[in-house]
């Protein structure tokens, strides 16, 4: 079903619910039972929806705190090119053994 047809079907269903509210009350959780049961459904739905979000958010905060100190110097080496170059120097090996046949070793 194309997106346009899906939207049209949703609109028609909503219109039908408005025109015949008894049909919309067919849900046993929302339209049936006692107030206590409906309240229990609503609270449970809200709790089970929000709890995983809260756990995920808390986990991200915990990871962020643990990573905060270590990530502080993440880009120092990359940005401080001059200091990095001063600390690092390339040394050519002087004692490379000669190759057989008098060939010169490749320089790269």
């Amino acid at each position, binding site marked *: 079903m194309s997106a346009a047809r899906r939207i049209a079907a949703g609109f028609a269903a909503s219109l039908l619910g408005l025109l015949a509210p008894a049909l919309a009350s067919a849900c046993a959780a929302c339209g049936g039972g006692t107030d206590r*049961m409906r309240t*229990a459904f609503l609270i449970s739905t809200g709790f089970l929806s929000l709890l995983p979000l809260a756990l995920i958010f808390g986990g991200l905060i915990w*990871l962020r705190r643990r990573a905060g100190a*270590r990530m502080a110097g993440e880009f120092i080496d990359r940005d401080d090119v001059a200091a990095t170059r001063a600390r*690092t120097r390339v040394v050519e090996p002087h004692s490379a053994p000669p190759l057989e046949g008098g060939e010169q070793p490749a320089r790269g």
Partner: protein
Amino acid sequence: MTARAIAEGPGLAAASLTPSARRGRFADHTLIGMGLFVFAEIMLFSGFIAGFIISQRSAVPGSWPPIDQPRLPVASTGVNTAALLVSGLLLFLAHRAYRAERATVAARAMGLSILFGAAFVLLQGREWVRLLAQGLTLTSSPIGSYFYLIVGAHALHAVIALVYLGCAWFWLRAGRLMPQTFGAAQLFWYFVVLLWPFIYLKVYL
């Protein structure tokens, strides 16, 4: 021919590493894995308790709990709850001693924590035997079904967590306990300990 970079700095090995390698991991895989498991189990028990609450509220007033079913032992389970909470506190003290590199004190506290946890499981088992003898079974009523499902699942988690803690205790005594292993065992036991008061409040009271 190869070019060899000599690093001048605090350490040859450290300076030759990339920045990300030098930074190291900021969260151990053991802890993350246990955290994900605990997250899944929290959602599992949340579903159980939500179902229990809805069934309880859906019942006809005065019919929950059913009059022909034995009442849950609130007082004795309260004592068991206190034992479990003490177990959690002792494990926290063991963790502090472990971080202070006082292995003997940590092992003693952890051992006591395991004993209190085992006492909780055994006493709960004794209550189960009594309830079964009095007629509360898995199929006798909805409250029986929910009780054995929720409390049984918690007991299963408690037993597995105790086994894990026992292994950690042996490794601690042998001087081979890794911080991440201890952290994961703690996380699992804290989950078992902190979940129980919610179960006690909703199912028993």
